[in-house]
């Protein structure tokens, strides 16, 4: 194996970049192979990949009603709308 190829295969920065690109878009066949070989030998990046996908899963599971407006702000909103209606 050439050392250039070795460097590519054993590069965690590159591997995590490809993991992200694969999750959110697509990667080439050569990149898929490279990543496959890397992950087979790198448990740290396998952990990274698992956690990266978990983060996406948790992120998309947030819902509108996880966030609530405080009553004081709602009151000022109503007042502003009333004022605007009177103005027009």
């Amino acid at each position, binding site marked *: 194996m050439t050392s250039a190829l070795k460097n590519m295969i054993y590069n965690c920065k590159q591997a995590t970049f490809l993991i992200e*690109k694969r999750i959110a878009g697509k990667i080439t066949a050569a990149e898929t192979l490279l990543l496959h070989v890397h992950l087979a030998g790198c448990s740290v990046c396998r952990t990274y990949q698992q956690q990266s996908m978990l983060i996406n899963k948790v*992120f998309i599971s947030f*819902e509108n009603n996880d*966030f609530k407006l405080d009553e004081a702000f709602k009151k000022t909103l109503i007042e502003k709308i009333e004022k605007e209606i009177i103005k027009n």
Partner: protein
Amino acid sequence: MQNETDKEYAVKSLHSAPLSWVDKYADYLYGFAMLRLRNEDVAKDLVQDTFLAGLQRLDRFEGNSEEKTWLTAILKNKIADFYRKRSTSTLKDLNVTDAEHEQQDFFDAESGHWNEKHRPQAFGLEVDNPLMMKELGSILNECLAKLPGLWFSVFSMKHMDDLTSELICTELKLTAANFWVIMHRTKLNLRACLQKNWN
């Protein structure tokens, strides 16, 4: 006198709905905005702007869509405007080499291997434990709020609104290379933040 009553009547019938907007839609719209901004002040401002813009355009609301859908569409545009403005102002200062440089902290500059202190470790998480997942969710929320604004826009447009990377690049005036650097950095930072604050 007659005119006056007519006018009053018109105002009343036209505006009977807006007075109930806050009760009916404020929480929903705020949640919608918070999911895409993670910034309370900006979310509140945009919800207020949405209601005021809705009032201005009441005559153009033809009742073809639900009021809620109509207001949400106005809010969506306001969020997109906010993203665009934030991107333009950030990009002026954003230097991609800086971005790359910062990232090297996670990895050895020569070999690209993980640096010891940034190496991912198992969270020791039971994914089928709802309480644990809820806890993880609230930590993730704090981590998301700490992200630079532009990164969060990119991440949210991709994963919350499911937009293509091409569209996001056009909207935010990013190159494809820039886009992927941001996606990578965002995830590295979120993951590191979770690891730091979990347990």
